[in-house]
C-alpha cells in the first residue's frame, strides 16, 4: 500500500458519488495523477517550470519539446549513401583503407578475417540542398526538400559493434539487458497528459522491399527495473492495436459496461468489508481500460484524415503497419499528447548488395518521413515536437564481400554515423560535427549516444542527471554515468 492508494481512498466518496459510467475524465485524471504519490525528495523547482505528470514533481527547466517522435532506423543505415558525402572516395575505389585511418580499431569478426579492406565509394549522387547547401544523396529527395528544418548530426558515435548490444545500448543506455528504455524513463519521469493512452507507444513497420534485417527485442521498449506499467506499448497493425483491447466475440460495449458496473459494485462491497485502498485503485483501472477501448480505435481510425494529408504520406499510408501509416499514426499520437512514440523501421543491415537494396528501402522511408515533418509544421506542432531520426550505428567505407562497379556491401561501423533531429528545441537547418574523408573517424564535435539521449531529455525539460531511480542500492539513470547535453544545437 502506498500514498497513492490512500489518496484514492480519500477521494472515493467523490468517486462513488457518480455513476461508474459517468466518471469525468478530469476526476480520473486527478485520481490517476502519479504526482500525488511521487517522492518529494528532489529540490524544489521554480513553479514556472510547471508540474510534470510523472514522478518528477516539476520539470528541471523550461521545456522546448512536449513530446518526442523517434523514427528508429534499426540495423544501422549507411551514412555513406545518405548523408555523409565523401567525394574524395571516388579516386580510392577498390584501394585499401589506409592503416593510418583504421588505426587498429576493432572490427567485427564478419570482416576481421578479410584479407583487405577495399574502399567502396557510394554509388549514389549527392547534391546540395536548402539554405545552407547541405549535401544529400539522391536516395532522399523528399527529406532533402525539408532539410532546412533538420539539424543533421554527422558525428554520432557508440562503442557497440553488433546489433543486439548496440541497439540495447542506444535504447537503454547499457549494452547489457535489464535497464529501462528511454520511453520508460519518460513515462516514469514526466508521465502523460493523456490518461486514455499509454505514455510510450511503439510502432513496428512491416518489412519494406530491400530489407536485410535483424531481430528486435521487447527489452528495447521494456521498463527494466522500473514498474512494468512504464513499458512501451506496441500498437499492432493487425489484430487488436493494443493487446487484449477488444472484447471477445459476442460481447459488445454495452454488455461490457454492464459487467463492469456489476464488478464495481461487488468490489465496492468488498472494500466496505476489508478497507483496502488498493480495491479503489483497481476499480479505477477497470474504468480506464473501458475508456481505452474507445480511445485506441479512435486513434487508429484514419478515415477522417484529409485527402491532401494522406497523399502527402504516400500511397502506402492506408495500409496499417506500413512505415507511412505509422508516421501518420505518430502524428495522431502527438496530437493526443502522447509524450514518446517510436516508429521502428528495420532492414538497414546491408552487408551485401547495398546498391541493389537500399533504394527501395529509402523510397519507403523518404516520403513519409518528410511528410511527417511537413504535417507537424503545418499544424504548428513542430515547435513543441522533437523528431529524431536514426539507428544504432553506421556502416563501413570499406566493402564487405564483393566489390565491383555494380555492387558492394558494408559492415557495421560504430565510430561515426549520422542522425538528425527536427523541431522542439533544436536549431533548424544546421549540420553538426564532421568526419574524416573516409567517414571512418569523427574529426569535429563528437556526439556520443549518451550525449544524444541527454540532449533529448534536455529538450523535454529534464536534466538527465536528475531523472534517477533507486534500484539495488544505486541511483540509476538513462545515461549511466555519462552524457553531455549538446548545447550548440539547441535553440
Amino acid at each position, binding site marked *: 500500500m502506498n500514498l497513492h492508494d490512500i489518496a484514492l481512498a480519500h477521494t472515493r466518496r467523490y468517486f462513488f458519488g457518480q455513476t461508474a459510467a459517468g466518471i469525468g475524465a478530469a476526476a480520473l485524471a486527478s485520481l490517476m495523477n502519479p504526482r500525488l504519490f511521487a517522492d518529494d525528495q528532489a529540490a524544489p523547482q521554480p513553479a514556472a517550470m510547471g508540474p510534470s505528470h510523472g514522478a518528477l514533481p516539476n520539470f528541471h527547466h523550461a521545456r522546448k519539446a512536449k513530446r518526442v517522435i523517434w523514427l528508429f532506423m534499426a540495423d544501422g543505415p549507411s551514412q555513406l549513401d545518405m548523408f555523409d558525402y565523401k567525394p574524395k572516395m571516388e579516386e580510392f575505389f577498390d584501394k585499401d583503407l589506409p592503416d593510418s585511418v583504421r588505426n587498429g580499431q576493432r572490427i567485427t569478426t564478419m570482416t576481421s578475417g578479410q584479407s583487405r579492406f577495399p574502399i567502396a565509394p557510394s554509388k549514389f549522387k549527392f547534391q546540395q540542398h536548402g539554405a545552407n547547401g547541405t549535401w544529400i544523396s539522391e536516395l532522399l529527395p523528399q527529406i532533402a526538400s525539408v532539410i532546412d528544418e533538420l539539424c543533421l548530426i554527422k558525428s554520432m558515435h557508440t562503442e557497440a559493434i553488433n546489433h543486439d548490444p548496440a541497439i540495447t545500448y542506444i535504447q537503454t543506455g547499457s549494452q547489457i539487458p535489464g535497464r529501462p528504455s528511454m520511453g520508460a524513463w519518460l513515462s516514469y519521469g514526466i508521465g502523460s497528459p493523456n490518461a486514455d493512452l499509454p505514455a510510450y507507444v511503439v510502432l513496428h513497420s512491416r518489412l519494406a522491399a530491400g530489407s536485410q534485417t535483424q531481430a528486435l527485442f521487447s527489452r528495447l521498449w521494456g521498463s527494466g527495473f522500473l*514498474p512494468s506499467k512504464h513499458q512501451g506499448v506496441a500498437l499492432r497493425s493487425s489484430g487488436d492495436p493494443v*493487446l487484449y483491447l477488444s472484447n471477445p466475440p459476442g*460481447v459488445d460495449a454495452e454488455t461490457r459496461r454492464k459487467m463492469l458496473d456489476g464488478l464495481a459494485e461487488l468490489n465496492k462491497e468488498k472494500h466496505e468489508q476489508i478497507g483496502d485502498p*488498493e480495491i479503489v485503485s483497481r476499480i479505477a483501472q477497470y474504468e480506464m481500460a473501458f475508456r481505452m477501448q474507445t480511445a485506441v480505435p479512435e486513434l487508429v481510425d484514419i478515415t477522417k484524415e484529409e485527402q491532401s494529408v494522406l497523399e502527402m504520406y504516400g500511397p502506402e499510408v492506408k495500409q496499417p503497419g506500413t512505415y507511412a501509416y505509422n508516421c501518420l499514426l505518430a502524428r495522431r499520437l502527438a496530437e493526443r499528447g502522447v509524450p514518446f512514440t517510436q516508429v521502428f523501421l528495420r532492414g538497414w543491415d546491408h552487408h551485401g548488395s547495398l546498391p541493389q537494396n537500399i533504394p527501395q528501402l529509402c523510397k519507403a522511408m523518404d516520403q513519409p518521413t518528410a511528410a511527417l515533418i511537413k504535417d507537424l509544421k503545418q499544424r504548428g506542432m513542430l515547435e513543441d515536437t522533437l523528431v529524431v531520426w536514426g539507428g544504432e550505428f553506421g556502416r563501413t567505407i570499406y566493402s564487405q564481400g564483393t566489390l565491383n562497379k555494380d555492387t558492394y556491401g558494408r559492415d557495421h561501423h560504430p565510430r561515426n554515423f549520422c542522425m538528425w533531429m527536427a523541431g522542439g528545441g533544436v536549431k533548424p537547418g544546421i549540420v553538426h560535427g564532421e568526419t574524416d574523408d573516409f567517414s571512418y573517424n569523427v574529426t569535429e564535435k563528437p556526439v556520443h549516444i549518451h550525449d544524444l539521449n541527454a540532449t533529448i531529455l534536455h529538450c523535454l525539460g529534464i536534466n538527465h542527471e536528475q531523472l534517477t531511480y533507486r534500484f539495488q542500492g544505486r541511483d540509476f539513470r538513462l545515461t549511466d554515468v555519462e552524457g553531455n547535453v549538446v548545447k550548440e544545437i539547441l535553440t
Partner: protein
Amino acid sequence: MRSISILLALAMVEISPLATSAADKLNFNRDVRPILSDKCFRCHGFDENKREGGLRLDTAEGGTQKLESGATAIVPGKSDQSALVQRILSEDASLKMPPEDSGKKLSAAETTILRRWIEEGAEYQGHWSFIAPVRHELPKLNQSTTATNPIDVFVLARLERANLKPAPSADKTTLIRRATFDLTGLPPLPAEVDAFLADQSPEAFEKVIDRLLLSPRYGEHMARYWLDAARYGDTHGLHLDNERGIYPYRDYVISAFNENMPVNQFILEQMAGDLIPNATQRQKIATGFNRCNVTTSEGGSINDEVLVRYAVDRVETMSTAFLGLTLGCAVCHDHKYDPITQKEFYQLYAFFSASADAAMDGNTLLPPPFLKTPTPEQEEQLAALDTKLKEAEKTREERLKQLAAEYVDPGPQNVVSDERKDFVWIDDALPTGAKAEGEWKYLTKGDFADIPSGEKVHTQTGVGTVQHFFTGANPPLLIGDEDKLFGYVYLDSKNPPKTVMMQWNNGSWEHRAFWGEDAIPFGSDPTSAAHRHMGPLPELGKWVRLEVAAADVGLPGGSQVNGWAFTQADGTVTWDSAGLQTRTPQQGLQFESLAEWDTYQRSLKENKLPQPVQGIVKTEPDKRNEAQQQQLREYFLKNVYSKTKSTLQGLDAEVAEIAKKKTDLDNSLPASLIMQDMPKPRDTFVLIRGQYDKKGEQVQAAIPAALGKLPEGAPANRLGLAQWLTDPQHPLTSRVLVNRLWQQYFGVGLVKTAEDFGAQGEWPTHPELLDYLSRDLVDNNWDLKRLIKSILMSTTYQQSSRVTPELLQSDPQNELLSRGPRFRIDAEMLRDNALFLSGLLTEKVGGKSVKPYQPAGIWEAVGFQGSNTLNFKQDQGESLYRRSLYTYWKRTSPPPSMMSFDAPSRESCVVRRARTNTPLQALVLMNDTQFIEAARFFAQKMIAEGGESASTRLQYGFRLATSRTPNEREAALLTRIYETHLADYSKNQEAAKKLLEVGESKTTLPMEPSELAAYTMVANLILNLDETVTKE
C-alpha cells in the same frame, strides 16, 4: 489543496513507525549508516579512487582522523567541533555538503540525526548483514500474551514499542484460502474449506499445512519463484533467440522442493553439482542454474568480450540470488557503498573462468556441455540399437573388404565426358537436410495431363510476392564450370503470375533469375547476378523448362548450393523437377574407375573431398606414396565406386535405418545444459573499467575479504565457492533466503530490498526476527518445509488483513506486521487460478515447455528471419491448460499476459517482482482467450455442480473463487447481473453463440446459448473480482 495537506500529513506519519523515540540511543546501522551511505559515501566512502579531500566516512578511523586541510570531520561527543556538522549546516554554497551538483540534499531530520549521533559518541558498527546471524534472546513482552511461537514474540515486542496491537485472527475461510495459495499457488476446493470449518480440533490448521506441504503443487509453486532468480528461459535470449534445451533443470528444481532437499544441498548442487565426487546425473542437471544466462551467436561478435559478459552475469546472479548484494557495481570500479573492491569482484569472477561453455552458442538447442538424461528403458533401447548397428556395420565392412580384394580398375567408362546430364535435385521430395519454409503444397500427377517427372508437383497461389523455399540441403548441389540450373514450371493460364523467379542459396540468396515483369523487388539491379532478368514469362498452360547458366547468377564452378526458392508475383504457379545440368558427380553420379575419378577430381579447380584425401588428390599420382595410394583406393571403394553402392545397397540401407532409429531416439531424449570446468582455466585479470580488452592485474579465485574466506580445505573452484555459500556461519545466504520466503508470504520482506542487503539496502524492520529465522533454518539442517510451517503457524501470519483508517495512520505499509498480508496474486497464479476454477487445468508435473494461447503476430513482429522461434505455433489439447510455470518463455518476447502482470523477462536474475495495478491488466483478465474460455467452463461448472436455480449456481461460483459464501447483497447483485445479461443474450442469440465459441475446447453442456453466455459473463466478472485476484 485539502487532499495534498492530508498527504503531507500522511507522509510524515509514514516515516514514524521505524523512527526511534528521542529516548533511545541512536543505532549506527539502523539510523546513521543509511544517511551516510546515500548522501556521503559516493565521495567519502570505500572507493579509494573517488575519495574527495582524503575523507572516508565509512569507518571510525576515517571519520575521526585529521584531514589534509587540518580539520577533523567527526569529533566524537562534540558535534560543534566536527567539520562534518559545520559543513552540512553551512549556508555558503562553496562549503555546503552535500554539494549542490551532487543532486543530494539532507533533510532537517537527517541533519538532526547526524548531529545527535556525534553527540552520543559517534559509535560505528560493522554493516549488519556481514556479521553472521546469532540467536537473540526472546524479548520480554509487557502484556501477558499467549504467543508461543518465537516469531510472534519478536513481532509483538516491536508492536508494543509502537503502542500497537496485532490484528485479530483471520476467519477460518480466509485462512485456508491464504495458506492454500501460499503453499500451492492454487485456491482450496469448497470441500477442503468445509472440512477445515468442521474440524474444531486445535490442530486443524496444522493438518491443513501438513497436507498442503505434501502436495506436488508445492514444488511447482516454489519453483516458480526460484526460476525468476535463476533467470530460467526456453530460448538463448540474444540475437536469434533460438530455442534452448534446459527444461530438465526446471524439473530438478520442482522435485528438489517437493522432496524437501536441504537448502544447503540444493544450492551446492546448483552451483557445483558437476564437481561433487561421483556426481549423479541429477546433480549435473542442477548446474543448469549457471547455464541459464543469456547467450549469443551473433555474427561479428568478439569472443573474449562475450565470455566476459557470461562470467559477469554468473557472478551477479550468484550475488543477487544468494548474497543479496549488488556486486555488479564492482565490475568497473570499487563498490561505492559496500566493501567490495574491483579486484575482489574479479576474484569471484575467477571461479567461473574455467567454465567450458563456448562464447558462441551456435544457435543450437544444446550448446555444449550438456547432458542427456534417458530413462532406464531408453538407455536399454539405445544399447540394443548400438549393438545392432555395430553388427550391421561389421557385416558391411567385411563385404567391402571382399569387394576391395576383387577390385580391378576397369578403365575409363566415359562417365566423365563433355556431355552434361540432368541431375535432378528436387522432385517428389526435397534433398536430404533441406529445411522447407513457406507453403510447400503438393499436387499429384492426376491434376495434370502429364508432368515432367515423378509423381508429384508443388504449387502456390498468391497475391503479391509469395514463395516457398528450403535451405540447409546437405550434401549440397555441386556446381561445375559452365553448368546450367534448370526447373520445370507450369503457369496457370486462368491466373497467370506477373513474374516467376528462382533463387539459389550458397550462404546468401543473392543469386536470382526471373522471367516476366520486374515485379519482385529482391536484389533489384537488373544487371546483377542478384536480379537477373531472363526474358518474358514462359508460355502459359504448359510445362516449360527454365534454364539458367549458373555462372550468370553468380554461381561459378566450385560453388555449392544448399537452398532453392520458387518465387512468384501474383497468380498460380506450379513447379516440378529442378536441378543441374552437369558433368560434376553429385550424390548419385557414379564412377567405376578409380583412375577416371582421380583424373576428374584433379581437373576441378577445387575438390571438395575431405582431408587427407583432398591433399592426396592434389598430389601428382606418381608422387604419392604407398600409404596415400592405399588411402585413396579405400576412400574410392567406400564412397564412390558404383559397384560398392549396388552390392552394398541392402546393407547400407540396413545400417542407415538402424542409425536413424538411434539418432531419432537420441534426439528425443531429454537433454539439459550443464556446467563443466575445463582442465585449465582461462587466466583472469582485473578488467579496467570493466572492458574486456583492458587487462589489469592478474587474479586468482578468492572470496572478498569482507565476506570471510573459503572454508578450511575447500578447493579454489566452484565447489569451494558453493561450500562457502552454504557454510553454516555464512552471514548472508540463509538471511537472504528466509527474507525471500517472508516476502513470498507477506508481500514485503523483513528487508524490503530483497536484492540488496548492502549499505544501500533497507535496514530490516525486525532484525532479530530475521536472524532467528535464519539460524532456525540453518540449525535444523536447512529444512525448508519445517521453517515454512513455523511461519504459517504463527499468529502473525494468521492475522486478519482488514485495514482501518487508524491502521493506515499508524502502520500504513504494514511494516510492523500489525495485520495480515493482502496483495494481488502473481501473473502465473492468476492464470492457474482461472484454469483451476474452470476445471480446465491439466496437472502434470515436469517436462517440456508448452505454448498456450497468445495473440497472433507477437513473435513475428520482432523476430529474426531464420530464428527457430520466429513463428509462434500454439499448442493444442492439454498443453493449453498446463500450469503457467510450464509456459514457453521466449526471452526476447515473453508471454504478453505474464508481462502485463509484472513477470520479469528472465534475461537477468530477479528476486523481487514489482506489483502494479494497470488498465492493461484489466484488459487481459477481461478479454484474453484463455480467461474467456476459462469463464465459459467455470460457468458450466457452476451450472453442473451448483444446484438448480440461478442464484444457488452463482453463489456456488462465487464461493469457488473466493472460498466464502456471498452475503445477501452480493448474492442479490450476482443474480441481478445474471438476469440483465440473460435478457440481453436472449434478444441476441448470435452474440451468445459467438461468445461460446471462444477457445479450442468445445462446450460440453447441452444448454440454451443465451443462458450459458449469461453465466459466462458472470463467470468473467467473478474472475475479475478484486477478491478473486487477491490473496488476503
